[in-house]
């Protein structure tokens, strides 16, 4: 040890570590560095007194300054809400059809609506609003609407919901389960007929009988030509879009069991401005219809 050729009198001790003949001086630490270290300890203790720190059974010590991240978030939220109060009240009071004429309001409604949609609607309709066919959650991107696709119809559906028991103004209709009403053969015939009017290949021998059954049992809601009636929420059966699926199996299942989807009302959970915002957002996803004067 300490045989380094460069070692001179007055050099500090070495640590005894050696790598390829290179040794390490054991220099003393600067004293102010030590004081800085003590200072950080004092600072650390002071910090735990001033700020929430020590975990107790129920909650942590609150700290003398009364700081809390939740309070900070709440403050931030109320600041943003105050900043948006004007445009929110404008959104809540303007005619629904006028929103799109005001670019600033439209932009705000689309962005705010997208946020509302992700929080409240995406659980059923999906984050991309494409719905879930297997579960009967409608696709909101296409140009087919069960209860209407203009801004006012969308707004009404969101506000009051569908087939719920909470809102007396909810949209309501019910398809009966034909499993007890029609025979299996009759159901197969009407399935063939529906396939034919929607442009699919169908067993021609069944179709003509199916047409008769359709007129007797289905036309009152789905219309004589199968194009549906929006006031009743009865889907158009002639187009390429299906709520529960359009093949023979899915059609048979629906006619036998008659699933009826439910949507909650949102007036009790969302503000009018939020409902209008999400209506504007959904209207702008690609299928929005213009209101007939």
């Amino acid at each position: 040890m300490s045989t380094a050729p460069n070692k001179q009198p007055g050099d500090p001790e070495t640590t005894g570590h050696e790598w390829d003949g290179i040794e390490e001086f054991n220099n003393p630490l600067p004293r102010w560095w030590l004081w800085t270290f003590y200072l950080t300890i004092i600072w650390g203790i002071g910090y735990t007194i001033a700020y929430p720190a020590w975990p107790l059974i129920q909650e942590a010590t609150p700290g003398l300054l009364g700081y809390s991240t939740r309070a900070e978030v709440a403050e931030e939220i109320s600041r943003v809400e105050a900043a948006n109060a004007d445009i929110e009240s404008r959104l809540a009071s303007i005619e629904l059809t006028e929103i799109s004429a005001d670019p600033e309001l439209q932009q705000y409604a689309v962005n705010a609506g997208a946020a509302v949609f992700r929080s409240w609607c995406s659980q059923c309709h999906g984050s991309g609003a494409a719905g879930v066919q297997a579960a009967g959650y409608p696709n909101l991107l296409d140009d087919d609407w069960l209860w209407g696709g203009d801004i006012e119809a969308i707004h009404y559906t969101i506000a009051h919901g569908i087939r719920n028991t909470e809102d007396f103004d909810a949209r309501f209709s019910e398809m009966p389960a034909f499993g007890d009403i029609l025979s299996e053969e009759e159901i197969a015939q009407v399935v063939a007929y529906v396939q034919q009017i929607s442009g699919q290949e169908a067993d021609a021998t069944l179709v003509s009988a199916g047409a008769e059954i359709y007129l007797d049992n289905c036309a009152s809601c789905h219309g004589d030509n199968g194009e549906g009636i929006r006031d009743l929420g009865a889907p158009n059966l002639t187009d390429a879009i299906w709520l529960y699926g359009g093949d023979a199996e899915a059609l048979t299942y629906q006619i036998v069991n008659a699933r009826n989807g439910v949507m909650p009302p949102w007036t009790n959970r969302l503000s009018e401005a939020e409902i209008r915002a999400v209506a504007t957002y959904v209207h702008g996803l690609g299928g929005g219809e213009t209101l007939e004067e």
Partner: protein
Amino acid sequence: MSSTDTEDPKLYAAREPVFPRRVSGAFRTFKWWFMGLALGIYYITPWIRWDRGPNLPDQAVLVDLAHRRFFFFMVEIWPHEFYFVAGLLIMAGLGLFLFTSALGRVWCGYACPQTVWTDLFILVERWVEGDRNARVRLWKSKWDFRKWRLRLTKWAIWLLIAVATGGAWVFYFTDAPTLLVDLLTFSAHPVAYTTIAILTATTFLFGGFFREQICIYACPWPRIQAAMMDEDTITVGYRDWRGEPRGKHRKGEGAEALGDCIDCMACVNVCPMGIDIRDGQQLACITCALCIDACDDVMEKIGKPRGLIDYMALSDEVRERGGKKPLSIWTHILRPRTMLYTSLYTIVGIGLVVALFLRQEIDVTVEPVRNPTFVTLSDGSVRNTYNLRLRNLTLEDRRFHLSLTSDALLRIDLEGTDELVVDVPANQMVQQRVYVIAPPRSEAATASLTDLRLWVEDLESTDRAYRDTVFNGRDQ
């Protein structure tokens, strides 16, 4: 074993105060000029005006965090062009590699803010308290009225410099004249005051009190730069084969046996790091070259050639010991390593400049919506959605016409309008939902992927830009 070995080594030591003596010479003169230049650039830059027209800041260099823009004279960088900043950082890194491998720690010795401001603070110190000997005496003297007066004067001037330093920093982030008025009327944002306070404190403490300790204990560069130097690097060194054995030259005492070093301690006394360069290469040496000036001065006085302490390459030691001349500086500097750094530096630099000039004035990004990949419409046609971000980098409102070209039969449609025109106001970005529709049972509707090209055309100038993307059919 001697008794000192059994004693516990001291764990902590007080700082040895450093009192650098005034020195004059070629390097000191260069350092004064460079210091003036560096400080000048730092303090004056935010005040340079640059007319960009209405609605845009007229400050030549501005980091506009609120609007997420970086202005640098005629260049304006948007957040999506951050790669320019990344490129500049890469160039700064390569520049450091190049200079360190060629010239050692020149950054530390001349350009580092710690060096520049410490130099300035020492200048103030010398002006108030006198040169080295006077300062040593003052340090040792009692705290009487005179000492308090000198110390307080010095600290007050340091504080003014520190406030100006912290103050200049915030001007880079907002309009300087406006902010200056706000600062003086106490109506500026608290962030501005906090920033100034922090930078004032660090400047005051680092420049006035910590000085060489920042370089020795806090800064990572000395460790990193040591790894970038090699034996051909030009650095400050002591020709011990010429200087040793050192000793005072006294008449008639056999000065012939001694080297050129007369052990006058001039090199140690001028050193701002408080080290002895004659001990060899060391971590604490920032290669400020002041010892060269000091030694050259002494050599001239005793009638010896200059350069006992000098910029030199360590590989020349063997040659010089053998009585040969050292290689020329350029032989040392021009070697594969530095040439590699230079070419990398140049390539990145040219790449950035080219990218800057090739930047399109129509800036568009196409983000295909993949949730869901496609939508079936009631007539059986298949629709894809694309989110377009259109940026107008010019100062005039522009109207863009959108269209598409594809081998397949596809139709384009825009959300919220029956036209295929998007208005983008000056210096803004607009998002537009674009639909591309394939007819029922068409090739594109049934296939997996179909290529298409979206065109954006400025109706006024007929500038065009396109983006290639794909259309998703039913076969997923």
